[in-house]
Each structure stands twice: as C-alpha cells, then as structure tokens.
C-alpha cells in the first residue's frame, strides 16, 4: 500500500499509512527529479510508479495516500481516474478490519457532519487532512523511500506554464505575531456588523481576524483572513465570533493556546476545538463582553 509527497503533510501521510498497517512504501516527489509541478505530469509519474510496483497480492487493498495540500489535492483525483481507483478526499481517520476492509472518516457539509466511508474498489487514492493524525513520532519505523522519476513521454503532460508567483493581498496586519485575536465569522451578518468584533478586539487589545466568507464578501480586507489560505496563527487567546469551524479555518488557528467560540448553533464544529464555548447570539453577548472588559481595564 501507499505513497506520499515530501513536503507539508508528510507526517500525516505516514501516520495514516501506519494506522492501516501493511507494507508502506513512501514515494518522494520533488521538482529536482520531476521538473516543475503540473497536475498531469505528477499524476502520470505516480501512476507509472504505482502500476509498475504493484506486484503484490491482487486481493489485498492498495491504498495510495497523499497530503491534502493545494498541490496534491489538485491532481489526486486525476491519479484516481488513471488507476481506476476510488477517490476519497481529506480524510481524518483510517481503519482496517480483520477482513482487510479499509474505512476512512471525512467531514461533509462544511464540517457540520462527519461520514465514515468505505471504498468499493481494490485501489483507493485518499488525501490526508493536514493536522489530523497529530502527535506522531517522526523517527518511528523508517519506511522504504522511492524517488519518483520523470515519465518518458513527458511533452504530453506539460499542459500549463507557470508565469510567476505573487502575494495574494497587502500586509499591514500582524496576525502571526499577535498575542490575542478576535475573529469575525460570517455569523456577524454584514459589513456594518463587523464593528461588534472590532470593538471587542479593541477592548481585549487584540488583532482582528476574519474567516474567508467575511473577506470574500468584502466586509474586511484579505490580510485579516485566518485559515489554510490565509494566516496560520497560534495566539494565547483566539476568540471566534460566528465562525462555524470548517477544516480550512481550523487549520489556521487550532494551535492557539486558549480558544473561545461564541456561536448560536450548539452543534457548530468550532465547539469541538473550543476550550470555552458560549452558545448564544453573538450580537447579544459580544457587546456585553466589550463593556465588561472596558470597565475591568479602567478600574
């Protein structure tokens, strides 16, 4: 079973592979050997490696694991098509039963529910959620490592050209270095209502963060965004107002020392990482919190 990239998520992929037992082979993909990343190229290189190396028991499951990064999640479904495999994205747990049946857990409906899924094919390509499978020992059981080589018919796969890289938004907000962060989620309700988070941030001497929809809707500029496509933060105190707790948001803040969530939905997934949770309308609680904190400061 398995396979993996070199960069971010390598630990998670190895831990997930270990949870499934079996023989692990780790495949390293790097630009030095493969050339610049393109989805078709990487899918083809892995397909060749996996089909050639699959001399094992044809009845045993073949599980190919990749980290759920913006690179491998882009081409992993294409690899699944080429291998005629099942595809399961962003898994957070994996088990195998005595009969050799593999099961994965993944979040659905914006992390509001989680599903246990079982592949219906012998080969399965799965991406592993970054941050799941935490706390593994990097030194444990050195797996056999293979470097992935360049496929022979290379021209066919260079389907796009990289013109350059650029920063997505302006700087100016020191979220990464902040001691305390108050984050406005979509639950604040609108650009005029963001002030309820901003005022609480001032009272706490905190920086102001935002979830992605708050930025996408133009309620706050992009440099406030926390999450996988924004800032990764780990302040002493993270206070989330009207944030549901999607995987992408949690990736940006779950390392915070104390997490507080205020949400009117008792089933919001943010509560599963919160140290303190208030189930209430944020527009009722946050202004009171601001007033009490201001009074506390001036006394």
């Amino acid at each position, binding site marked *: 079973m398995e396979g993996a990239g070199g960069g971010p998520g390598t630990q998670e992929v190895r831990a997930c592979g270990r949870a499934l037992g079996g023989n692990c082979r780790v495949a390293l993909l790097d630009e030095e050997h493969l050339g610049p990343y393109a989805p078709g190229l990487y899918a083809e290189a892995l397909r060749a490696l996996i089909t050639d190396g699959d001399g094992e028991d044809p009845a045993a499951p073949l599980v190919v694991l990749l980290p759920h990064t913006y690179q491998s999640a882009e081409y992993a479904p294409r690899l699944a098509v080429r291998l005629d495999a099942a595809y399961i994205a962003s898994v957070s747990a994996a088990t195998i039963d005595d009969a050799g049946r593999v099961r994965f857990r993944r979040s659905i409906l914006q992390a509001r529910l989680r599903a246990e899924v079982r592949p219906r094919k012998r080969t399965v390509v799965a991406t592993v959620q970054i941050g799941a499978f935490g706390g593994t020992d990097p030194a444990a059981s050195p797996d056999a490592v293979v470097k992935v080589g360049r496929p022979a018919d290379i021209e066919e796969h260079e389907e796009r050209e990289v013109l350059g890289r650029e920063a997505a938004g302006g700087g100016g907000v020191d979220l990464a270095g902040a001691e305390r962060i108050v984050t406005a989620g979509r639950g604040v309700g609108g650009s005029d209502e963001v002030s309820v988070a901003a005022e609480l941030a001032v009272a706490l001497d905190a920086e102001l963060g935002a979830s992605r929809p708050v930025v996408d809707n133009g309620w706050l500029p992009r440099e406030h965004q926390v999450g996988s496509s924004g800032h990764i933060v780990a302040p002493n105190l993270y206070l989330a107002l009207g944030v549901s707790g999607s995987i992408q948001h949690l990736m940006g803040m779950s390392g915070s020392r104390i997490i507080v969530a205020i949400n009117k939905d008792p089933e919001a997934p943010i509560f599963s990482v919160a140290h303190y*949770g208030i189930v209430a309308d944020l527009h009722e609680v946050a202004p009171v919190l601001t007033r009490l904190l201001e009074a506390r400061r001036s006394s």
Partner: protein
Amino acid sequence: MRIGVCIKQVPDTDSQLRIADSGRGIDDSDLNWVISSCDLCALEEALLLAEAELARGEERPELVVFSLGPARVEEALRKALALGADRAVHLADEALQGGDALADGRALAAAVAKEHCDLVLTGAQSDDIGQAATPAVIAEILGFPYAWLVMAVELDSGKRSLRVVRELEAGMNEVLRLDLPALLAIQSGINKPRFASLRGTLQARKKPLRHEDRRGLEVDAARVGAAGAGFETESVTLPPAGAGGVMIEGVSAETAAEELIAHLEREAVL
C-alpha cells in the same frame, strides 16, 4: 466561442441538518436547496468573461450551464438562466443519480464534450460533499489543461489561451498560462455573484433547457450513477461537541460574559 459552467445544487448551509433514519446521509425531506457557493462564482466569472468579450467588440460567447441531479435541480438551472446563461442541460436520468465525484465527472465530461465547449468553469469544491474532485475528473477525461482554486481569469485576444491566477496556501498565488480548451475550478472570492433581475427571471422561462440521459451521453451504465461510485457512506454522525471544553449555555448574556471573563482571568490571558 462556447463556455460551459457546471453547477451543483446543495442544501443551504444555513438550514437545519437532520441525520436520516438510515444513518447514512441527511434527511432531505425539508431542506432549502441552493446553487453551491463556488459554483455561483464560476457562473459569475463566465458572465464577466462574456461581457468583456462583448465590450472589446467581439462576439459574445455562448454560455451553457450543466447540472446533474434529480428534478429539483431544474430550479438551479432556471436560476442560472435568469442570471444570464443562454442554455441549460439537465443530466436528470435516473441512471446517472447517486454517484460520487468520479461517476458524476464521467457523465458531465460526456455532456460537456457533446456541446463542444472551449472553456469549462466549475466551482472549486461543493458545499455538501466537498471532495473537490469533479472538475479534475472532467478535465482528466477530456484531456483538458486544468487549474484548481482559480482567483482570476483573463482570455487572450486571440482566444487561444488563458492567463490564470491560482491560489496557493498561506496567502500566495501562482500565475499560469493554459491553452484552450481548458477547465478551471473557481475559488470563492474571485468575484461577487450578481442577483437575478425580474427581467432575467421572466426571460429564463423561455430559454432552452434540455434533458440528457445515459444513452444519449453514451456512457457505460456501470461507470456512472450509484453503480459507478467508488465509495459508499456507511454512517453519518455529528462531530463530538465541546470535546473537553467548558460550555456556557442557557444563561443571560451578562452572566455568560461574566463567566467567560472569570475563566480567562484564571487562564491568565487577559
């Protein structure tokens, strides 16, 4: 030029979700259905591209929307027509329903190929199952150049290639060039989707919407719909709430705020 847009109808994420009696999915008897948020951005981007072509004196590309799903999906397609799409294709055949991203991608690829689209746009990830795989599967099957998480699109003047900005992690972007025909999976935040006008809604009723079935698409029955799905869902559960955390619930705002401040003082984070 013809631009195809694939949209998915999903439960409104603000609606109350109940787990079905079977324990394998959600109870869909009482849900509000909407177009998945990134898919609306994909449609908006197609409309903007068409308008930009018109503004530079070119012929306006034709916009065709595709959706796979049961009868209720017609409402999503009518909405897309009201927003400005020209034609709609509904993959409504029973034999195509109940699939996963691989099965749906195969059916949609066949429908897109039949319409000879030069550019196909989809959302980056659906708000329900969220595998982010259907667009990649369509691109793979059609052999189209592909980019996921697209934050900007520009068509070159010769309509032969695209300049595309793709999002990377941690606030970085990558700038790419792709030759047409191509498929782009659009990320939220690329634009602000417009609202349908009354006039658009009235016009939408008269715009062509046709049904497509498995035979017409010439896809193998074993590779689409429930039969073609690569995995099955055994159970669906709520994530564990308040795993170890202190929950403050059912008290006044004043009490909740006071309790929280007391906790935070003890944690020495104030």
